[in-house]
């Protein structure tokens, strides 16, 4: 049984700057993977290459048994790859319910499941309730705080009913109890069979969530394994704490 996501020797350059170098990564269905690394280590670039926002020059990405290199981002989303953006990118002219409605109208419908308008409406409210934004369902994204926008971002990614959800720093700026809430949400999703890749700076969150940890430093993968073992890895310690 091969993995859900297979990244093979992926490299990405921006001009002369090597953002990612020969990254290989296999993610099996149902995993809870933490992806960490210092700022500028290439985490978001990797996400962008997986999701089709950026094109990788080298290497290949396979998802669910299909090569998805060169595939436009929306088709990848249709296949079951959803992500939240590190800097929230809400649809500013649509209210919260409509923000959530978009993936239901376009992604879930593209898979051949056509839901009735009532169901979609209820489902949107349900998702907003899960992230604690139900009270602001009819407001515009600009009425939200940064923290709430992150929650909206996550809810929108969840609405696409993905097989693999990539949460790119969904918890930055959240309080301790809010982090607990989001983590519980992600664990619940995972228990329902969604593979989750969590990119995060908050180590306590990563450590409590992840069953496997991958560390990127300067565009290279320097560690991959069980979280506590990875954290003991001298290379990782050096990257995080200095010599």
């Amino acid at each position, binding site marked *: 049984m091969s993995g859900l996501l297979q990244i093979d020797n992926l490299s990405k350059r921006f001009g002369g700057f090597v953002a990612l170098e020969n990254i290989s990564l296999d993610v099996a269905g149902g995993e809870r993977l933490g992806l960490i690394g210092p700022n500028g280590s290439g985490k978001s670039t990797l996400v962008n290459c997986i999701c089709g926002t950026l094109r990788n020059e080298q290497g290949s990405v396979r998802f669910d048994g299909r090569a998805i290199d060169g595939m*436009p981002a929306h088709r990848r989303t249709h296949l079951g790859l959803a992500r939240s953006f590190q800097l929230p990118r809400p649809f500013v*002219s649509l209210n919260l319910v409509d923000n959530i409605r978009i993936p239901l109208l376009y992604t879930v419908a593209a898979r051949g499941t056509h839901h009735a308008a009532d169901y979609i409406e209820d489902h949107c409210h349900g998702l907003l309730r899960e992230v604690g934004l139900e009270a602001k*369902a009819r407001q515009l994204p600009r009425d939200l705080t940064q923290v709430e926008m992150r929650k909206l971002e996550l809810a929108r990614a969840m609405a696409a009913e993905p097989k693999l959800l990539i949460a790119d720093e969904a918890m930055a700026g959240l309080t301790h109890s809010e982090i607990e809430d989001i983590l519980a949400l992600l664990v619940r999703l995972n228990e329902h069979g969604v593979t989750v890749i969590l990119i995060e700076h908050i180590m306590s969150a990563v450590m409590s969530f992840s069953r496997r940890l991958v560390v990127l430093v300067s565009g290279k993968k320097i560690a991959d394994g069980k979280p506590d073992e990875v954290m003991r890895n001298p290379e990782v310690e050096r990257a995080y704490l200095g010599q």
Partner: protein
Amino acid sequence: MRTPSFLIIALLVGGLVFAAALAVGNDYVFFAGYVVLQYVVLSTAWNILGGYCGYVNFGTGAFFAIGAYSTVAVYKLIENNELPHAVPIPVLMLIGGFVSGLIGLGMGYLTLRLRGAFFSIATLALAVVLETLVVNWDFVGGSRGAYVLRPETIAYLGNYVRYLFLIMLLLAIASLVIARLIERSRLGFGLATIRDDELAAEASGVPTLRLKLIATTLSGALMGMAGAPFPYYIAYLQPDSTFALDYAVNSIAMPLIGGTSTWIGPLIGSVLLGSLQQIITVTISSAVNLLLVGVVLVAFVIVAPNGIVGLVHKYLQHKGDDFVGRRHAGLDAPEAAADAGATPEAPS
């Protein structure tokens, strides 16, 4: 309101407009009214791409002219083969719409990877290229222009200009119905996400390129349809005035003045500004026209950046320029409004 009832009401209003124009008893009303209606179509068509999708097209004149020159081409074809002039204007409009739609699709493919000002410049360039082609195409008259003889009268209506007015009125109604349909459909939601954030739209599964192509094709086709009867209206078609920048400027200014995020904005803007232009042309001079557009536009950009619709909404809501989010207020369920708690929804 459901689309069939909207259509019936629109047709009734259209009927009233036509009856009122007849009641005035002066055919100049039809002559001037035709231009206003033409702008209703052009600005509604522009708004499908510019307002809903956020791509500012400066090529309205080109699409309009393609429609007009399609008619000239058909006319010349008939004339050169000594056939009777029996092609009805609605058929010419379909032909013009088809050709313009095709050009719209092509333009979309070539330019939609550009964003913002670059897209606008590309559409402007397209207009210049097409004008050059027409100027050098002798069959449709080249730079000399082309004469199209229109019948003096038509059965039942009398003066032919009344017939043209009626046709443009129907096209205006059709384009408003189309715009309203788009606004409330999946397509409308998709176009709005493109306007807001294309990366996020793609990540949510919206096929942005395909949707943009649908928008350019539809928008172009409607503009072409508005242009198709024009040779019969003006009788002498000349590239300079048909490709004029006035069309582009007006069809941008009108939705901006009315409000770009609903179908009613372009309607309000074009009726107001279009009528004002017609009145000024008669009472002062036609040269003051564009000056007026400029002044009104600057005033609106400063005072009411969301147009008249925005002003009205602001007045109803007493709450800043919040109107952008009320697009789908019609879908709101009562309990959802109650859920919103602290911020009661204004009736809309």
